[in-house]
């Protein structure tokens, strides 16, 4: 789906990632689950046509609904590449804060063999809000593969995609053979919670394998 982008922009990708590390420290230092911000309005209204006037025409982001087998099929399409799955939702404020970083990773490391998948756990009928959030994060031109769980925010979704703790944000990292190598989630039993820096470092390690 998102082919590797060749070019010098990817050659300095890691330098850029290193800079983004700093930005993500904010994410690491703050309370991930309950950070202050404007609440994501849980509305399912159609987007108002007036908003289209100000925005330059951009291709509409496609967000297929997937169950586990659909997700696995997409993973299989990316065999040979490292795949980072960013499990997020519009109601997860730290997730929203991290989406631009996922877009950056896709842009900078796509040419080195990384595919980033943004898998939304919003309700299927809220796809317009999902799209708005993705657009706002600059996902549109990044090469990030955008998907949405067909089970929305339900327990079924958690089971299907093995979000065992039920907590978002949650990241999964697959190696080039399609094997799940790491899952990053918040855990009450952990002495220390994961950070965006660890995810980036793990991505780089797998790319080097």
């Amino acid at each position, binding site marked *: 789906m998102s082919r590797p982008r060749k070019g*010098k922009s990817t*050659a*300095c*990708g*890691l*330098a850029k*990632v*290193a*800079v983004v*590390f700093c930005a993500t420290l904010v994410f690491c230092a*703050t*309370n*991930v*689950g*309950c*950070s*202050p*911000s404007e*609440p*994501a309005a*849980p509305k399912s209204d159609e987007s108002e046509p007036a908003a289209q006037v100000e925005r330059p025409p951009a291709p509409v982001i496609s967000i297929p609904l997937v169950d586990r087998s659909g997700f696995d099929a997409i993973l299989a399409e990316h065999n040979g590449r490292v795949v980072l799955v960013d499990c997020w939702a519009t*109601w*997860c*404020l*730290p997730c929203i804060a991290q989406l631009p970083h996922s877009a950056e990773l896709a842009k900078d490391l796509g040419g080195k063999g990384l595919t980033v998948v943004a898998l939304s756990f919003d*309700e299927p009928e809220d796809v317009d809000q999902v799209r708005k959030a993705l657009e706002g994060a600059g996902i549109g031109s990044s090469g990030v593969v955008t998907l949405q769980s067909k089970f929305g*925010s*339900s*327990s079924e*979704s*958690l089971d299907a995609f093995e979000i*065992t*703790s*039920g*907590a*978002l*944000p*949650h990241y999964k990292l697959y190696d080039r053979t399609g094997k799940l190598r*790491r*899952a*990053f*989630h*918040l*855990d*009450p*039993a*952990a*002495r*220390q*919670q*994961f*950070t965006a*820096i*660890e995810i*980036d*470092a793990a991505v*780089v*390690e797998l*790319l*080097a394998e």
Partner: protein
Amino acid sequence: MKKSLRSFGMGMSMAIAAAIAVPSAYAADAATESKAKDTAEKKLAVGDKAPAWKDLEGTDNERHSLGDLAAVKAVVVVFTCNHCPVAVAYEDRLVELAADYADKGVEVVAINVSNSEADKLPKMKERAEEKGFKFDYLYDPSQQIGREFAAAVTPHAFLLDGARNVVYIGAIDDSMKPEKVTKNYLRDAIDATLAGSKPPVDSTKPMGCGIRYE
């Protein structure tokens, strides 16, 4: 930045150095998860004795302990916070739940263990007043009680029976959107407990904002 070419190799070794510098106690690691489970303290499960909070400050400026509720037939503990949109989406439902069961010997206790500025006690007090919380809304800045319950998300519900054993763990119901709810897991569990039977469903997976333990 595009021109400041750093070789992939150099960048990588830096990143790996960063990874090594980070303590190895990851929140979760697929490869070591089972090993971690063996060594970690046993996670609270249905049937276990409930952890008892002691002297937690509430939005009413009083100190509260589980022991204060000795006469209560069942206790609903909900880990929540101010700014998680999912937790906010459940506030009205918590208020209704507390009201509906107040005369049936059921006490609802909301606990916040998040230490972000917007979640601390002064903001909790504001929220409790705005929403008319009639139940205790307690703050544990040490996060200890959250760890003891293994509360992972907001909201995360636990039901304690008369003997203060945990009889239900999980979601309040099956949808963040009130209009889409078809299964009221927590209410069903309370009704069963009051009737002296086991909850029809004693655990569900709650989805919500991950609680960040420090």
